[in-house]
């Protein structure tokens, strides 16, 4: 079997057994990239020479017994809002088109420490704002299953690259569903961990109180293995949490007996595509057959999730993105017109439409006289949404939910109506507002042949339960392939 078609752990095992060398693996993926990239555009930055150099180093390390991790030598794609010293970090924006950080993200240090090979930086919606990867300054990424369709977003490049076998696994970031939704559109497995589990140091912030880096892979085992590498307490991130359990691979066993699974009624009502709904109920049946107890329940406050999310995320973004001003790094306007003018032209020329829309929205909800009416109210709603999930988890181990209302839309369809696009985040954003972990996995395809993904949401710090349930489903059904 062709090496690139294997899972990350399978490739890692072959490397450890010396059945294949790291440079051979990297070469094979670069060969695939050459074939696919012109149609998919999953990457913003690629550097074969550098990847090969690193591959040789890691191979040497493996032979010396330095790198023994099951993922050592396996090539990874990194979302382009995660800082890397070797590659530019553009955030999909003209603003950072030529920006190379002189520091790197905590997750990159973690990956390097186990001998990961970074293959390139993946495309994304500009500053992670978008649900389709169409707002990138570097062009649209296309869905590998049908290039007329979007891969989802904002981690569309990371998900498409894994689906197209251009890398063995990838990292994405999830502020309102940006890992789980594109994973579902691309037929891969993606996870957003509990807020505070993976360090945000070196992740270019969009909505700081919601952002989390997470793994994307071809199956549940890969995702568990990657999470084990990147999850850690980091004293450089004040919101990082010291956990007791970091051994997520231990949860990789088949067993959902006695597990209580809840489906929020509001998630399977109007607005949900029939084929997605059917797939969700089929999944529920599989779980019931395997011994779980599945029932529908009322989850309060669902309808407030979208306005709450867009208020909080935009407010934080308006402040987080203020630093891109042409003074210190990144794009600066050619037009010379004093300090104010330099700020105005730089930001007008450097940011795209969607980013400007959210900066304006965020500035508005924080402005004097509106702070209490919008931002403070949204914070209160956020706390209430968390409470309503707390109640749900006193009854259920896991919540079963769609990852998106439909399968991947056609390119160009979503940006025509941004409000409609925002509403598409309904099933994913609550997990961010409540800080909960969620995993999206493929469960089948619709009549157009596009992947359908379903999401499992767990209580805080219960990634292991999610991994166990997802792994069980995957083992029983073959993972919707």
């Amino acid at each position, binding site marked *: 079997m062709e090496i690139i078609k294997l899972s990350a752990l399978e490739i890692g095992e072959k490397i450890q057994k010396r059945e294949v060398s790291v440079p051979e693996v990297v070469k094979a993926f670069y060969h695939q990239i050459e074939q696919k990239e012109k149609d998919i555009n999953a990457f913003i930055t690629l550097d074969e020479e550098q990847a090969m150099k690193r591959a040789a180093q890691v191979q040497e390390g493996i032979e010396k017994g330095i790198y023994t991790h099951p993922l050592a030598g396996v090539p990874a794609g990194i979302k382009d*809002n995660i800082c890397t010293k070797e590659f530019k970090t553009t955030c999909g924006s003209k603003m950072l088109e030529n920006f190379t950080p002189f520091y790197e993200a905590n997750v990159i240090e973690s990956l390097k420490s186990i001998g990961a090979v970074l293959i390139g930086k993946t495309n994304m919606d500009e500053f992670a704002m978008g649900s389709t990867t169409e707002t990138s300054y570097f062009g649209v990424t296309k869905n590998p299953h049908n290039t007329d369709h979007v891969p989802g977003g904002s981690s569309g490049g990371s998900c498409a690259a894994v689906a197209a076998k251009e890398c063995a696994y990838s990292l994405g970031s999830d502020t309102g569903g940006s890992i789980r939704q594109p994973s579902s559109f691309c037929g891969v497995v993606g996870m957003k961990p509990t807020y505070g589990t993976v360090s945000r140091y070196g992740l*270019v912030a969009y*909505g700081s109180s919601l952002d989390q880096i997470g793994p994307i892979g071809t199956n549940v085992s890969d995702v568990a293995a990657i999470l084990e590498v990147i999850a850690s307490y980091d004293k450089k*991130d*004040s919101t990082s949490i010291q956990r007791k359990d970091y051994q997520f691979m231990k949860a990789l066993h088949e067993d959902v007996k006695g597990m209580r699974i809840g489906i929020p009624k509001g998630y399977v009502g109007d607005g949900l595509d029939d084929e997605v709904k059917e797939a969700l109920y089929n999944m529920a049946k599989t779980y019931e057959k395997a011994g779980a107890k599945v029932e529908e329940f009322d989850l309060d406050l669902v309808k407030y999730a979208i306005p709450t999310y867009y208020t909080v995320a935009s407010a934080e973004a308006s402040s987080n993105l203020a*630093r891109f001003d042409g*003074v*210190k790094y990144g794009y600066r306007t050619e037009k010379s017109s004093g300090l104010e003018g330099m700020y105005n032209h730089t930001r007008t020329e450097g940011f795209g439409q969607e980013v400007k829309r959210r900066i304006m929205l965020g500035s508005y909800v924080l402005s*004097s006289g509106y702070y209490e009416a919008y931002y403070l109210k949204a914070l209160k709603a956020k706390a209430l949404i968390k409470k309503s999930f707390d109640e749900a988890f006193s009854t259920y181990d896991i919540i079963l939910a769609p990852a998106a209302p439909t399968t991947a839309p056609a390119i160009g369809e979503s940006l025509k109506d941004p409000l409609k696009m925002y509403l598409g985040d309904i099933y994913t954003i609550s997990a961010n507002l409540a800080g909960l972990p969620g995993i999206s996995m493929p469960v089948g395809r619709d009549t157009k042949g596009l992947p359908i993904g379903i999401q499992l949401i767990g209580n805080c710090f219960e990634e292991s339960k999610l991994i166990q349930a997802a792994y069980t489903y995957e083992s029983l059904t073959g993972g919707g392939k």
Partner: protein
Amino acid sequence: MRDQFETVIGLEVHVELATSSKIFCSCSTKFGQKVNTQVCPVCMGMPGALPVLNKKVVDYAMAIGLATNCEITKNSRFDRKNYFYPDNPQNYQISQLYFPIARNGYIEIELEDQKKRIGIHEMHMEEDAGKLIHDEWEDASLVDYNRSGVPLVEIVSEPDLSSPEEVVAYLETLRRTIQYLGASDCKLQEGSMRVDVNLSVKKLGSKELGTRTEMKNLNSFKAIKRAIIEERNRQIEVLEDGKQVVQETRRWDDNKETSYAMRSKEEAQDYRYFPDPDLVPLLISDEWIDQIQKSQPELRGDKKKRYIEEYKLPEYDADILTQSKKMADIFEETLQWCRQPKKVSNWLMVETFRLLKENNMEPEDIRFSPENLGKLINLTLDGGINNTVAKEVFEEVFYKNIDPEAYVQENGLKAIDDTEALKEVIQKILQDNPKSVEDFKGGKEKAFGFLVGQTMKVMKGKANPTLVNQILREIL
């Protein structure tokens, strides 16, 4: 006419804390280093960098809060103050608006004839900005981020002050307290203490406050006094002309001794404050407060009392020595070398203060070591040198921190107590001044003084005066 108005003043005082590292990263806070050498992704506002609170900043802030009788906020938060300016690398400043570290305190100031309590509205922690350097030749502006992220506290008083004298008394008391705590050196000139004055005037007896202005760029107590008088007069003139005072921020020009408007309320920025999502709430336990309370150093009041009781100093001495922490420290350290408190006090209060005044220096600028002062005083006590010589040697100690023992030795300043040699000199003087000898014998004490003076003159001041007196009396 002016007597019909009274002045209402509130102060906003920024103080740079004496931590060795910055408030949200581990960069050094050392002053006067090469530009942009004490920086990192965090204090340069690089994308993806995150702040981590320096606990020492909280310790200092709590110490100041407790010393100024504030309530400590047990669930304190940091907020972002959003505004665009190149010295502010993130284009927001991490500060505290909604839940500042301390609130509702006061300090007591001593005026000529009374004491007055000045309320402290709140005190919060925040990060300092970088510095803009304008290059006139290149027509460009450059930014130095070394100061970016240096910890500050801002202490906001209640509008309880009513005169320049009260303002200076408040500032001196506040500065002294903070210096005693070791939380800052509070130098106005270097900017480690910065004062903004909020001032309004109102008709005498009126309950309604007038419209206030905020005065910035005040770099000395003198400038503060001057600016208060000028601004009070300006506002009264505006009102007497039947016009309204405009709420605005004004900048003091110390050379022209006048101020001009920087921006009015209409142009005032909307800072869009909101809780910083990168920092978790700061929860302060009772144990933490206790620990700070217990480790508070001896403050001025207690020190003064102890000087009077333990060292038997007059209240006047104790008062002056404790006016600055530095002077009190020098006093106590000198005592380690010379155990005569009153003598040490005299040397500090007379000679040291004289030289400070002559050189326009503060006690904080003193560079000599207490050891050298102690040795010098000892030399005067055992008759090794006389007072005139001692004063000269002290100047050397003050300016160059020389070792007085070695210096006296090398320069042959030691008093001559060779009785035989002195006798010879005195005999000669008596022969040359028969008139004075006559006068003395006739009962004129003054003549004796003259003879002592003549002896010292011949000896170039190096004679042991006690011995000279003794020999003179013997012979006469």
